[in-house]
């Protein structure tokens, strides 16, 4: 079973916050670790090896080649500061670099004041300043081949008159302002990069650090295709790592990764769960694991330009024809012994904006008949719905190299055929599905995952403005091609509502509209499994669905 975010689709676009420094700050605040304490303990020692499923494409985090969560988990978040970090409960907390919560003035003009911690310094001893905020803003807005400029283009100015205070003024209200100077992006040392080719300086790794770790030997610490090695950053002001060296070894496949942990080749792994994986781990007395339901969720994406999916009744009927409980039972439970049906496109991790709007869709063939008949369909001799001489025919499309989705396909085929739909299957490699079939609208029902984000913006997935067209270069993410005023209304409004309290109802309205229109059907949250060798690693080990299990790597200890 394999439930990744394919090809960076959607995942890259949504700023999945991956915040590492957050917990470190909390710990550091309560019990600031002084250099002398570590010194008396003899300093960091020993080394561990961790299997990493994906390798960052580039360490230039704002470049368009960046954008995978693993890059942030194993390198970005370990080495660079961010304004906000998302907590395990989905709330935003100020990063280790800030001295307290930033101050928001809703305006207009909207204005945010970030106060930088006095002791926050780069690894060369230079202080982290408001110029670093300004530098990031300018690079994102003015640079070439930038991953995502959203929000930054709404900034009018960054006041750097006080080196320890950055004042950001917006030209338009921007609701997702907490994702700025965070998310997949990091503050960069302007004093080192100013006037230089940022991309060239950073893409293969960098020697500087503003986090608990730094690359061993600078760019040499990252052996492309093989491994990435971190050592403690002596100048870090928060909790200092007690482990002398952490090597992330790139092992893309689940089987080999588990095998490697079981045999002691690596000390921890965070692989995509597979059926039977927990039994296998439990066989080994020295292994411990933690599972959770992650922010990545699996959904059925309906191409609403294709018959019969252009009919809302048919889409609703399909939702009623689907036994999502059975799917969860066959796909999630055997793998991680837990799981529940996802009822929204905002994962419940971020409770403030979550509403179980799809709850009404449980398998109900009576409702299917009702909806289909009401839409003018009749069952033909084969028991298949027909209208105007044409059958209700859908095709399931997913990436063919992904094991577990074939179970979903087989279950759906059975369930939908049983409900009177004709179902065929045509799979493709990720390049074809995401690069061709989706943007060109030639698919029928896509099965793939998306990533839920702490910021509740669903407009990017479902607004009319996000439909791929020639105007936007075919780059829009609304591959359901559904243009609905009922959806556009609340989802567009929430975009410009910086106040969280006022924003939540709008988001929930949008979700209700989505459940009515059914451009997509959410299935479940992809599970995660974090496994480690307890004979080797100690400390507060746990999965963090947003920030990854390495969010507190600096607190890990070696046994």
């Amino acid at each position: 079973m394999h439930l990744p975010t394919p090809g960076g689709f959607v995942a890259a676009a949504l700023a999945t916050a991956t915040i590492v420094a957050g917990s470190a700050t909390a710990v550091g605040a309560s019990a600031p670790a002084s250099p002398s304490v570590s010194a008396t303990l003899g300093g960091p020692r020993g080394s561990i090896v961790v299997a990493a499923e994906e390798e960052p494409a580039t360490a230039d985090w704002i470049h368009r080649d960046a954008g995978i969560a693993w890059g942030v988990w194993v390198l970005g978040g370990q080495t660079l500061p961010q304004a906000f970090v998302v907590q395990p409960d989905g709330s935003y907390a100020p990063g280790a670099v800030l001295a307290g919560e930033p101050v928001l003035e809703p305006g207009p003009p909207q204005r945010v004041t970030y106060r930088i911690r006095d002791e926050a310094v780069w690894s060369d001893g230079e202080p982290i300043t408001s110029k670093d905020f300004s530098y990031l803003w300018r690079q994102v807005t003015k640079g070439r081949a930038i991953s995502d400029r959203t929000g930054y283009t709404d900034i009018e100015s960054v006041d750097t008159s006080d080196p320890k205070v950055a004042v950001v003024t917006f030209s338009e209200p921007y609701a997702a302002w907490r994702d700025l100077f965070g998310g997949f992006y990091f503050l960069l040392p302007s004093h080192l990069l100013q006037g230089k080719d940022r991309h060239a300086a950073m893409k293969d790794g960098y020697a500087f650090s503003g986090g608990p770790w730094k690359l061993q030997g600078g760019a040499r610490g990252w052996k492309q295709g093989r491994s990435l090695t971190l050592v403690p950053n002596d100048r870090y002001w928060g909790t200092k790592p007690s482990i002398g060296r952490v090597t992330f070894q790139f092992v893309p496949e689940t089987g080999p990764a588990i095998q490697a942990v079981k045999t002691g080749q690596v000390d921890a792994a965070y692989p995509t769960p597979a059926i039977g994986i927990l039994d296998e781990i439990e066989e080994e007395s020295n292994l411990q694991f933690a599972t959770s339901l992650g922010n990545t969720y699996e959904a059925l994406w309906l191409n609403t330009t294709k018959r019969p999916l252009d009919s809302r009744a048919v889409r609703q009927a399909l939702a009623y024809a689907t036994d999502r409980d059975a799917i969860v039972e066959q796909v999630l439970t055997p793998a991680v012994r837990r799981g529940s049906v996802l009822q929204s496109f905002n994962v419940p991790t971020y409770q403030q904006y979550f509403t179980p709007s799809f709850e009404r869709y449980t398998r109900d063939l009576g409702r299917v008949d009702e909806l289909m008949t009401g839409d003018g369909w009749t069952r033909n001799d084969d028991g298949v719905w027909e209208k105007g001489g044409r059958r209700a025919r859908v095709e399931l499309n997913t990436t063919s190299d992904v094991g577990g989705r074939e179970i979903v396909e087989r279950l759906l085929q059975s369930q939908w055929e049983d409900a009177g739909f004709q179902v065929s299957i045509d799979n493709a490699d990720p390049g074809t599905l995401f690069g061709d079939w989706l943007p060109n609208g030639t698919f029928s029902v896509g099965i793939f995952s998306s990533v839920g984000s702490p910021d509740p913006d669903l407009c990017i997935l479902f607004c009319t403005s996000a439909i791929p067209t020639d105007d936007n270069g075919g780059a829009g993410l609304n591959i359901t091609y559904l243009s609905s005023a009922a959806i556009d209304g609340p989802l567009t409004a929430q975009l410009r509502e910086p106040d969280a309290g006022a924003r939540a109802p709008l988001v929930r309205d949008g979700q209700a509209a989505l459940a009515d229109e059914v451009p997509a059907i959410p299935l479940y949250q992809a599970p995660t499994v974090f496994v480690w060798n307890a004979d080797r690693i100690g400390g507060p080990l746990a999965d963090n669905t947003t920030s990854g299990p390495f969010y507190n790597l600096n607190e890990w200890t070696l046994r």
Partner: protein
Amino acid sequence: MLTYAGRRVLVSLPVLVVASVLVFALVRGVGPDPAAKYRDSRDPHAYQEARADLGLDRPIVVQYGDWLGHFVVGQWGESTDTGRSVSSEIGSALWETLQLAFWAAAVSAAVALLIGTYSGTRTGSAGDHVLTALAFAGLAVPTFWFGLVVIHFLGYELQQLLGTDQPLFYSVPVDTGGGPVEYFRHLALPVLVVSVQLVAGWSRYLRAAMADTMRTDFVRAARARGVPRRRLVVRHGLRNSLTALVTTMAVDIGALVAGLIVTEKVFSIRGMGTVFLDALGAGDTPVLLTWLMVAGAAVVVCNLVADLLYAVLDPRVRLA
């Protein structure tokens, strides 16, 4: 011989040029859209921008000429997936693959030589039957399946059996410092998987050649003049059978450069094969194009080596 080598290289050049057309047509015609991944981007201009950057808006013939022109002078461009230079991507992958290929070939050659000689000089014996059956098994076993089985049984069960905490062999590449022992523990399993097929193929080949050679008049004539069996087998039998085998081996080794896709995938080795799979999945056209050309060039080089070896080993072959 130098003239011959020179001529072969000259003849190969147009072949490679035509191959480049084929490769370009294949990758650009049938393969993925090089800019596809930027369609995911939240930035509405990213896709158009990327297409322009990649020069995809120009006529295809111009693109081909541009690519070939740069390719010939060693400017292989940058990966659209990682932004790194294609030469470094391919270079590091090639290094990984060549190590695997080298050891697999060396081990296989040694084993195949022993088995082929034994079987070829004792055709019909019980030992020959057993080895023949094993060779057939080696040729029939699906590599990817075998790799998974090997990882489980030799990588895990064996360790359990011996009750050790330390891994016996590595099934994933882990930087554990240097040393020949560590090197061996890393390469043992993948080399085994690759070698099964090579040994099977080569030993069958050598066995057939050996059996034929041992039945020739000249071996019988050597026997008739009192040449002892050992010398008969080594100096006449093996020496004559090797000519064909060595050239076959050279060609097979050339094919290994691009042919270890499954082994590399199963053992998480970032070699030519996995680079190809990633590039194909990511629509990384610059890498795909260069990759195919490098694989083709490897075959050309190995064919050339095969021909030269043949000429060196067999005085009857005239390189004209």
